[in-house]
């Protein structure tokens, strides 16, 4: 039984070098509070899965690394004794068992009584809304149904920690969105400590209490989705999470001078500088209010907002997003305003 509040996880100096010499994970320290949901976000091959597998006990860290669940050192414990729930991208349901038997497997292994097992399976079926599938063979389920069964199976035996490796990647966009919300609600209502791997930043933003952005085996930044989005610690993070404009300008008298005009600059310094800002931080304003002037080159209607590619502001195109309902014309000139606080100046 996981206590309410969940198990805290602590990684100390955990690196992973595979036998073929691949250094998948650099020395990593990481702390998860009980009940916290962290998302490991990063490009393909950056070591997200490896980090998750080290926590799970499917890979052991290089000598010197230690893993703690609460105060217990679990480094030497094999996965079957760590009491973790895992959900895999490929679902990994047991084809020789039906839905019910899959869900009951962990309970059976842990020696639960048949009555307790039946009760728990029933709860899981209800919770995941798959009651009518209980006797189906798992090969006769849709992708979304399989993932529900996989989730139910992982949490049925009340693991201390839930680990999910790209659980939604194999599903189509609509289903992904729906299950993402369900998983979000589920994880928070269970109060279980969870680590969730994805390379999809939208998913990361929606699910994580905290996001750890990983690049080449290193956690390059951890923070809330908001922190990561608005205060990226490096240009890698800035580029990986959402769209980021980069403009080259000159600092003079407290202003950033760009080809399209000048904006106030409060971060000091002089000379050439590269500044970054998010598409939705550039507001479209009237001619009178404008700090920067440019010309619409392309517009993309995205439903809830419109994305414009604007030339003339900086050396390249600048991406601007607005939720205004009006339509723009290609060739139309627009005025922009960017608040000084929205401008980022990242060195690397």
């Amino acid at each position, binding site marked *: 039984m996981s206590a309410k509040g969940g198990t805290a996880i602590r990684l100390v100096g955990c690196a992973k070098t595979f036998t073929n010499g691949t250094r998948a994970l650099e020395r990593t320290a990481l702390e998860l509070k009980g009940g916290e949901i962290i998302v490991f976000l990063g490009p393909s091959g950056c070591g997200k899965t490896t980090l998750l597998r080290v926590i799970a006990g499917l890979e052991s860290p290089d000598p010197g690394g230690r893993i703690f669940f609460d105060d217990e050192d679990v480094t030497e414990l*094999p996965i*079957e004794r760590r009491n*973790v729930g*895992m959900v895999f991208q490929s679902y990994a349901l*047991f*084809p020789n068992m039906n839905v019910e038997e899959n869900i009951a*497997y962990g309970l059976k292994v842990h020696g639960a009584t048949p009555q307790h097992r039946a009760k728990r399976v029933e709860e899981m079926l209800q919770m995941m809304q798959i009651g009518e599938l209980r006797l189906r063979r798992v*090969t006769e389920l849709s992708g979304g149904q399989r993932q529900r069964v996989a989730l139910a199976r992982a949490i049925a035996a009340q693991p201390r920690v839930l680990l999910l490796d790209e659980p939604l990647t194999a599903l189509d966009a609509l289903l992904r969105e729906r299950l993402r919300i369900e998983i979000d609600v589920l994880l928070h209502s269970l109060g279980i400590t969870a680590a969730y791997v994805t390379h999809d930043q939208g998913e990361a933003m929606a699910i994580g209490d905290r996001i750890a952005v990983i690049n080449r085996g290193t956690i390059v930044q951890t923070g809330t989705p908001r922190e990561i989005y608005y205060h990226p610690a490096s240009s890698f993070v800035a580029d990986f999470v959402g769209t980021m404009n980069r403009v080259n300008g000159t600092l003079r008298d407290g202003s950033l001078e760009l080809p399209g005009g000048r904006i106030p600059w409060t971060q000091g310094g002089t000379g050439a500088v590269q500044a970054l800002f998010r598409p939705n931080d550039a507001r479209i304003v009237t001619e009178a209010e404008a700090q920067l002037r440019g010309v619409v080159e392309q517009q993309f209607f995205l439903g809830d907002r419109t994305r414009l590619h604007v030339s003339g502001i900086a050396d390249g195109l600048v991406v601007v997003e607005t939720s205004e309902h009006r339509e723009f014309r290609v060739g139309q000139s627009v005025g922009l305003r960017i608040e000084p606080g929205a401008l980022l100046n990242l060195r690397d």
Partner: protein
Amino acid sequence: MARTRYFYLQLAFTLLACLFLIVPVLMSVIAGLTVNFFQGVSSGLTLRWIGVVWDLYAETIFRSLYIAFAALSVTLLIGVPAAYVLAKRPGVVTRLIEEALVLPVAIPGLATALALILTYGGFRDFRTSWVFILVGHVLYTLPFMVRSVLAVLSSFNFRVLEESAASLGAGFWRRFFGIIVPNVRSGIVAGALTVVTLSIGEFNLTWMLHTPETMTLPVGLADSYASMRLEIGSAYTLVFFVMITPLLIALQRYGLQRVTTRGPA
């Protein structure tokens, strides 16, 4: 109507080919059931020859059966875990082992048998017991079991199944018998049918390895052909057919074509 003529030609050819193969079988069956083959069926039908075969060779039939099932037990015991290990650790060494396993199939049975005799012939008790034949049969049939199971194992990602079972608390043996074995059942069944069929019919190796006390059915057949009336040899063949045909039919049904259809997602 060129197409129809072509069709009938094909049909005729197929029927001819079947006849060519089936007639000798029928002849042999009839020979085993007629009172006197040289006088033809007109001499009358009888089960007498079958009775004679039973009196003379019942022992070879039982011996063949228990050698086959012993070979099956050993190949199950060795072959299934071996296939698992081979699938789990793909690499140069496992490739070599896999190839080495096939050697007894590629090398003429006589040569394998000779090698066995040269190596173990000195151990008299072993040499003269049916276990000696069993060793030969295991060498010969093991690759079929291993390959059959291996084919199923490589048709789905059994590693991730094992990992998820482990995450649910299952230790190695529980995973092996609860997850791996049930999911490669089709390969095991196909392998088992192959092993039993091959073992019951094996002549080459067995002929070299056997002693008068350890004659098997196919060796007995050769013996009867050489030294008995044609009718007795034929009746004996009939007994062999009766034993092997159900196995062949089962092999058709549960054999290798089923192996590939079980691809867990």
